[in-house]
């Protein structure tokens, strides 16, 4: 390394906030060494997964984008079981963030996108929660969170990139500037993100967790590899014979997966590509209920605390008739 580069090293900046998870690749390897790669059936229940695979204080991540292809049942159950003190990957999060905020389930958050529901507006309750100061915040971006997961999926402790340099997003992140050893170019270095737990909703998988996903995949294939423990909720189970007929279509392999749950309409009230569109009416009901803490409490009592499981929630929201309606919108048979 040249003297010039060394000198420059001294001026390299760091973000002021915390890395909430250990980026150390050898620590992750030590965990993965003990993770089962046996081809064994992994069917279980939402209740069981949340009870046994998430401890208070764990750092969790949720698959999908916004309200699209999210494992809603897992988010509900985290709140229903009253999990507390979680760390959360606020990466392309919208309705999942809204649910977990309603349960005040987390106290630290990596931020790429939070409190909003895209074109639908902001979540009043999630905003109150964040503005309260109860949640420790570290700023990132969507690409950065994707790359932090990719670094972990690759088995690294960091990865370089060319965004966020020079901004307050950098200043309030936990990134560090580094120099390319070949060109001297300045890069942002990001710490690998190995979540303790991840939940991902897919179209199809077998009992071992070999998954098919259709449509945009966001960062889920990297997330499945990066997380120490992974649960897959699936619209439908398929046979392993079907998986073996098209091996190039397997996007998450079984060894990443610790638990599998069949969860039809599992992304409701969000959109599941090719299956059903989002229930905009019910999402508006969420936003309206959140305006005051009292109305939110009533809403949560009815839909989450007062239901035993996700099936009861679906029934409350209109059951099969509603689901058929959302399928017709998805398939462009009916206008929304």
């Amino acid at each position, binding site marked *: 390394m040249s003297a010039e580069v060394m000198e420059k090293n001294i001026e390299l900046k760091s973000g002021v*906030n915390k890395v909430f998870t250990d980026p150390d690749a050898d620590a992750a390897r030590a965990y993965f060494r003990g993770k089962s790669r046996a081809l064994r059936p992994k069917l279980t229940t939402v209740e069981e997964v949340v009870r046994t695979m998430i401890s208070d204080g764990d750092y969790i991540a949720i698959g*999908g*984008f*916004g*309200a*699209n*292809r999210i494992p809603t049942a897992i988010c509900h159950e985290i709140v229903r079981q009253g999990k507390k003190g979680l760390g959360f990957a*606020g990466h*392309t999060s*919208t309705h999942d963030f809204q649910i977990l905020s309603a349960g005040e389930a987390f106290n630290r958050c990596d*931020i*790429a*996108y*939070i*409190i*909003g529901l*895209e*074109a*639908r507006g*902001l979540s009043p309750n999630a*905003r109150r929660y*964040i*503005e309260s100061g109860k949640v*420790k*915040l570290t*700023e*990132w*971006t*969507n*690409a950065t969170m*994707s*790359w932090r997961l990719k670094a972990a999926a690759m088995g690294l402790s960091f990865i370089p*990139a*060319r*965004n*966020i*340099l*020079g*901004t*307050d*997003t950098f200043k*309030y992140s936990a990134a560090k500037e580094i120099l390319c050893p070949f060109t001297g*170019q300045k890069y*942002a270095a990001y710490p690998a993100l190995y979540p303790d737990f991840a939940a991902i909703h897919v179209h199809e998988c077998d009992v071992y967790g070999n998954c098919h996903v*259709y*449509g*945009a*995949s*966001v*960062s889920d*294939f990297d997330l499945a590899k990066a997380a120490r423990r992974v649960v897959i909720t699936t619209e439908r189970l398929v046979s392993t014979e079907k998986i073996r007929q098209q091996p190039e279509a397997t996007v998450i392999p079984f060894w990443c997966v610790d638990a599998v749950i069949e969860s039809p309409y599992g992304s409701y009230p969000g*959109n599941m*590509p*090719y299956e059903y*569109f*989002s229930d*905009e009416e019910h999402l508006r009901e969420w936003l309206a209920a959140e305006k005051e803490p009292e109305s939110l409490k009533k809403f949560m009592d009815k839909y989450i605390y007062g239901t035993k499981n996700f099936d009861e929630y679906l029934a409350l929201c209109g059951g099969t008739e509603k689901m058929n309606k959302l399928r017709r919108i998805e398939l*462009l048979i009916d*206008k*929304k």
Partner: protein
Amino acid sequence: MADYNPMELMICVAARNLEDGATVVVGTGAPCAAAMLSQKTHSPNLCIMFEAGGVAPILPAMPISVGDSRTFHKALMASSMPEIMETCQRGMVDYTFLGGAQIDMYGNINSTMIGSDHAKPKVRFPGSGGANDLASLCWRTMMMTVQDAKRFTDKINFITSPGYLQGGNTRYEAGLPKGTGPYRIITNMAIMGFDEETKWMKVLSINPGYSRKDVQDNCGFELKWADSIADTDPPTADELRILREEVDPHRYIIGR
């Protein structure tokens, strides 16, 4: 002259800036409408991309989310967020559009917070999402926004997404890719670019019905002015018809 509202004007102006054969990453709302209008007027092969992974869809309706089914309806590719962001980082994406609560004279944008304590913000917004990424990595960033002196400020509370940072060469000295940066700020009153040397915001043309004074009075910092200030061409009857009938028939966006 056709009658139109400020949103319609901004969308039409934005659409004109997207040439055929270019690539653009858009979000929901006005940017998506501008890209669709551009396709239906002069740029049939404009490639529209969404950050969740959708590429070159045949959009059957306005997406509600940049990751919903519409964003990859009959698309040429339904890929991933890293795929799109790395395509930007590799220099293959020409344009993007950003929004924000504040913008300063160098085109820096705030979509994170109002206040001075990051840990306990006075007003919290969603944060960067993909905005910083696209502003950092696409060649040319544009913004469509209603103009007022609070939004256009020299006291930006938080730089979420980079414009030209502190002006001059500071953007590239910070390490951001060479040759990138804010390109056009399209408001209800005017169209701005940026001075080549200082990178300070510079008015290029004024929209019908507004004066120099309007444009300066509704900006919290002193604007630079191009040597000759043009009159912004108003939307044509064709543009308006296509926008209203084909792009946004339910007036989700142009009715705002």
